[in-house]
């Protein structure tokens, strides 16, 4: 039996290192993108004390490459996270499926007994139509997983923990 998880609490910033929000800091080739969004709670209030982590493949869809798509970022006073990274490529899925480019997002915070996991997909990717995970999500809720390019190279996905427009979270 795996060890029980416990909330990260309000003081997790003891392990916040702002440079971790840039996954390219050890060197990376390719165009940088920003991944950003605001996290809100069940009343629509910004979640200002969350720890957000991302994990994704490199632009060729590889997880074992030199580029390492891992980042950590705090939400600010407006509930916003912002990462600098590279846009991932398509990744093999189970069977012979091909997954659309995506970013795994983990959210830790006070009030979250354990982290929430979700995925960020990119609007306009043809593979979104056949992505095996998106296919498991009721169509009406799929938009909660699909980031839009709100400025050149800036992909925005707001996250709602609870209530109207609640983000699809994953049981991983």
């Amino acid at each position, binding site marked *: *039996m*795996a*060890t*029980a*998880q*416990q*909330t*990260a*609490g*309000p*003081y*997790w*910033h*003891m*392990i916040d290192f702002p440079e971790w929000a840039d996954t390219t800091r*050890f060197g990376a080739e390719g165009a940088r993108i920003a991944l950003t969004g605001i996290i809100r*709670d*069940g009343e629509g*209030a910004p*979640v200002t004390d969350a720890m957000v*982590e991302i*994990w*994704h*493949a490199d632009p060729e869809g590889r*997880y074992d490459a030199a580029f*390492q*798509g*891992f980042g950590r970022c705090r939400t600010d006073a407006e509930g916003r996270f912002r990462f600098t990274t590279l846009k991932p490529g398509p*990744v*093999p*899925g*189970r*069977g012979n499926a091909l*997954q659309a480019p995506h970013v*795994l997002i*983990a959210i*830790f*915070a*006070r*009030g*979250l*007994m*354990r*982290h929430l*996991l979700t*995925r960020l997909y990119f609007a306009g990717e043809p593979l979104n139509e056949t992505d*095996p*995970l998106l296919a*498991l*999500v009721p169509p009406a809720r799929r938009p909660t997983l699909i980031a839009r390019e709100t400025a050149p190279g800036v992909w925005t996905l707001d996250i709602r*923990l*609870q*209530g109207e427009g*609640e*983000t*699809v*979270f*994953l*049981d*991983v």
Partner: protein
Amino acid sequence: MSDPTPYARHAPGSQPPYDAPAYGSTHRRHPKQPLIRAPHTLTETTSPRLTPDRFPPEADMSRVNGKDALGQRIIVAGRVLDEAGRPVPHAMVEVWQANAAGRYHHPGDTHDAPLDPNFLGRARVFTDAEGWYRYTTIQPGAYPWRNHHNAWRPVHIHYSLFGAGFAQRMITQMYFPGDPLLPLDPIFNAVPDEAARNRLIAAFDLDLTVPEWALGYRFDIVLRGPAATPFEEEDHA
């Protein structure tokens, strides 16, 4: 390309629910829609390579610039294993905690207890080839947290762990044996299974205790292991 081995699903009762009514902050932060069960792909079965060259270890919280922090010096050590009993080698373990007075070195902590200039309260260590980790610190103090009248957190150290797959990623808290606050704590008691709760409590360990120097505590951590059968994922899909 063959499919990656999925991780086992969590045993019933082993993990706290998102909706834990006695812990007020969960009220507006827990999802109300059902989670979507995600098959384990490379995204879930791979993990960042967090290595000491890029993430320098710091295994001694008990002093800053050669000056000793106040409080009871302790050594905490243990093994990180998976559910199959295999060591998790070279895993990055981050820990953070309050000082001996129950105060975090954090701008958000307004508890009326003294800061200690010689205590920061965070460390980063890596497990060895056998899954062992070890760090030195001082025993933290309990602190109030306003969840309910006269609410005090039991003494604890926060842990953050990475395994071989992101599905193993987890954050937890280590508690101390005999703490009278444990039966009163909504966070500790949100774990349904009593045995699972009690495994969050470290054990005093005389073998880890260093004469004339520091008390030793043992705290082992188990990360998710491989699914029992390769078909488990499909069975539950």
